[in-house]
């Protein structure tokens, strides 16, 4: 729930004698519930349709598979949500996923210490910290360029998309890192899979990470000053700045958050597929953006929720999985997924236009009711 929606739903005390004011607020509440619920409705529809078409769709095993895939996208989408709330975009997260995986893989392979013959094998927790740190660092560079130099987020992160992917290829040098991830007892770097591919209580670890991060993101957005600042500067950066909001710092940090999320996904993914590969994470940024948008966020900033984003990620996940299970060809899968994304924003926009028109009509009617004498038309 965003600050915006929360505020719209606060029941106002009816003070207007005409009563027009109260009814206006009620309709805002109703329509915002529709916007919120739209993604959920779509999700239920998708599940219902595919459950009818295939007996295996709601199979617990399949649900776990879906959830695991959804979780990767949802974690990235949470970071992306922060960026989009600020009116920015981060195209580099997919490459950062790949880069983090490659960094982690190389650390498992061991570091050749310069000037010595020694190879160092860091412990798993060190590898995790360094890898996620690399993700955060990529985000920090993005953030600095965007907030301090005021470069366009699209351009900076597009550049970083290439840089990140290139560095991934350099680090892997044409070879996937697979066996080394298991670690060796003698080197003291085992335990990676035991944690990052585990299934506490039967649910994949990635789903747990998603749940924890979603809760943290909710608290951050709704309860912390940082969250309020994020919504404010996303809606009107100049006004936020003049209200004392540290807009530059806020902007830098959201890209760090997005990069950190990408780092976490990178680790989860190499554990999931038991390999660090050069194309890991390719196009992930697009799925993340799609989840945020389907979840009702505005690309212009200032509007969007954690709940919506998570639902958006599930819409994409359940749709993709359903299409596979039903046997739709991969080519048509893309067409349908794309159409759903466009449909989501189109419906959003149509709803907004309808709302604006209704508000304008009401305002005009109020004016006519109040000033009957001046509105004279000559014959």
């Amino acid at each position: 729930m965003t600050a915006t929606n929360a505020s719209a739903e606060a029941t106002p005390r009816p003070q207007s004698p005409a009563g027009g004011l109260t009814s206006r607020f009620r309709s805002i509440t109703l329509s915002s519930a529709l916007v919120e619920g739209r993604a959920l409705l779509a999700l239920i529809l998708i599940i219902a349709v595919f459950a009818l078409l295939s007996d295996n769709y709601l199979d617990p095993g399949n649900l776990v598979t879906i959830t695991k895939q959804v979780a990767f996208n949802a974690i990235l989408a949470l970071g992306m949500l922060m960026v989009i709330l600020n009116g920015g975009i981060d195209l580099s997260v997919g490459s950062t996923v790949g880069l983090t995986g490659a960094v982690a893989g190389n650390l498992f392979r061991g570091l050749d210490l310069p000037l010595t013959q020694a190879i160092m094998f860091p412990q798993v927790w060190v590898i995790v910290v360094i890898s996620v740190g690399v993700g955060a660092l990529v985000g920090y560079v993005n953030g600095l360029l965007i907030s301090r130099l005021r470069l366009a987020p699209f351009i900076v992160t597009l550049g970083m998309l290439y840089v990140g992917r290139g560095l991934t290829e350099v680090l892997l040098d044409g070879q996937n890192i697979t066996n080394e991830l298991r670690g060796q007892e003698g080197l003291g770097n085992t335990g990676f899979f035991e944690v990052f591919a585990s299934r506490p209580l039967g649910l994949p670890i990635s789903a747990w990470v998603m749940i924890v991060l979603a809760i943290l993101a909710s608290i951050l957005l709704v309860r912390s000053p940082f969250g309020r600042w994020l919504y404010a500067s996303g809606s009107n950066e100049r006004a936020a700045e003049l209200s004392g909001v540290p807009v530059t710092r806020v902007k830098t940090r959201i890209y760090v958050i997005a990069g950190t999320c990408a780092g976490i996904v990178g680790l989860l993914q190499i554990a999931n597929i038991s390999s660090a590969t050069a194309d890991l994470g390719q196009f992930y940024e697009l799925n993340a953006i799609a989840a945020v948008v389907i979840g009702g966020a505005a690309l212009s900033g200032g509007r969007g929720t954690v709940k919506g984003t998570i639902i958006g990620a599930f819409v994409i996940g359940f749709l993709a999985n359903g299409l596979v299970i039903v046997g739709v060809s991969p080519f048509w899968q893309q067409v349908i997924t794309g159409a759903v994304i466009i449909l989501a924003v189109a419906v959003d926009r149509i709803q907004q236009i309808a709302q604006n028109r209704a508000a304008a009509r009401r305002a005009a009617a109020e004016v006519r009711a109040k000033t009957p004498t001046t509105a004279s038309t000559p014959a």
Partner: protein
Amino acid sequence: MSAPATEVAPTGTAQIGEVVLRAVGISKTYGVTKALKGVDFDVRAGQVTVLFGENGAGKSTLMKILSGVEQPTGGQLVLHEEPVTLENTVDAVERGISIIHQETNLCPNLNVRDNIFLGRELRTRAGGIDYGREAEITSRLMRQLEEEIAPQTLVADLRMGQQQIVEIARALAAEARILIMDEPTSALSASEVEVLFRVIRELTANGVAIVYISHHLEEAISIADHAVVLRDGELVAHEPAGDIDLPWVVHRMTGRQAEYDFREEPRDFGEVALSVRNLTVADLATGRIVVDDVSIDVRAGEIVCLYGLMGAGRTELMETLAGRDPMTAGEVLLNGEDIAGLDVSERISRGLGLVPEDRQRDGVVQMLSVGSNLSLAGLRSVVRRGLISRTSESGRIRRGMDEVTVKAAGPGTPITSLSGGNQQKVVIGKLLMTDPTVLLLDEPTRGIDVGAKGEIFALLFKEARKGLGVLYVTSEIGEAMTASHRIVVMNKGRIVREFDPRTSSRAEVMAASGESASPATSTTTTDEAIGGTQ
């Protein structure tokens, strides 16, 4: 789309003096704010109708309606004795009504010819642009306007005055019969004004009707055939120009301003709270000096009014003091402490905040509620263990709303549903919640009705009695005279004089600002400029 002009000199059907455009009971409402309340007036062919009025009187709203930018909520426009609805600006232009804005609307990256025919390009048989004919018409128009600018000249390379001429040429190319000019001289030098006035006289001789708006009262009076005065959205006078003079205009414009009067007996102010020493600010893009060696002191409890015309450097001064724009030279001390190196948020936490000029662009956060807007600046004070404490936030919001008397259904109300005056109270209240030492306000009452204006000043004076120092900018003389302890006049980036509002006259203050309201400082320049056409 109508056929573009092939004739350079506009040939009209209307006789000079004939009414070509009539506004009947035009009213316009934004949300709860009534910008225009049933205005009637005529525009006559071959004559200049000047619109007078203070900021917020409804002039610009009326202009927007006449030029098709906005539709009236009540009333009717009658063009050549036929009721019309101007759907948009293109529609207005096709009906022969063009507007020339204060800020020119040209594309600086295109040349003069392309600008003149932008959106109504002449076509060759093959469907391409007929550059030859366009250039020919452009040269002819430029010769007529006595401004020999080659059609291929880039607009970016032209002086402001020349750009203005290009705008007029564009209107003529679209066969404008009614030309609306909004503050056309504000960026012009004296000699450019001279050229412009000569062009206006030529246009009217050809039967073009002109609607003219300017803050330079004497200039406007000298070009006027008819004077229309607006005040608070109402038409207060509509007279032939022969019967008017400057005191008449000033009186009609400001007549009801004295509804509030906050002048008070001198009292002891506190220590100097804000001290500005030799502040100089250069525009980063152009290098032009916009604030020139300015020194001002504001004491605790004192309300200082910074009066001046638009473009005098007032906004630049305020934004620099707030920490948004960098200063070039000088010192800014808050409670004796140098704050030159601090950014906006650090200055706010030290006790110096700005209520910006453009409420929509810089003041309110549209997607947040009234309550969240109000608590935004002082958010740090309601944080407990890293999180916003809801109880303490809503408590502060409730107190804040009472303090500044915001009329809203509740803290959850969308900020955009409030009237301009109430939105402004929220913006002011937001900064008051940070316990400021000095509050800066840039045109705090722009676009706000008289009642809310009084309430806003009542609020400022109440806070001042508690020790708040206030420095506010206004271009409304009535406001400066009745709602300040001291008036500082700014003209062309410099502080020119200071006045005590209890012992000085409006005319003196206006004269110092360059507005030249005093009949004593008669307008020799504009008299010469129009070359005895009256």
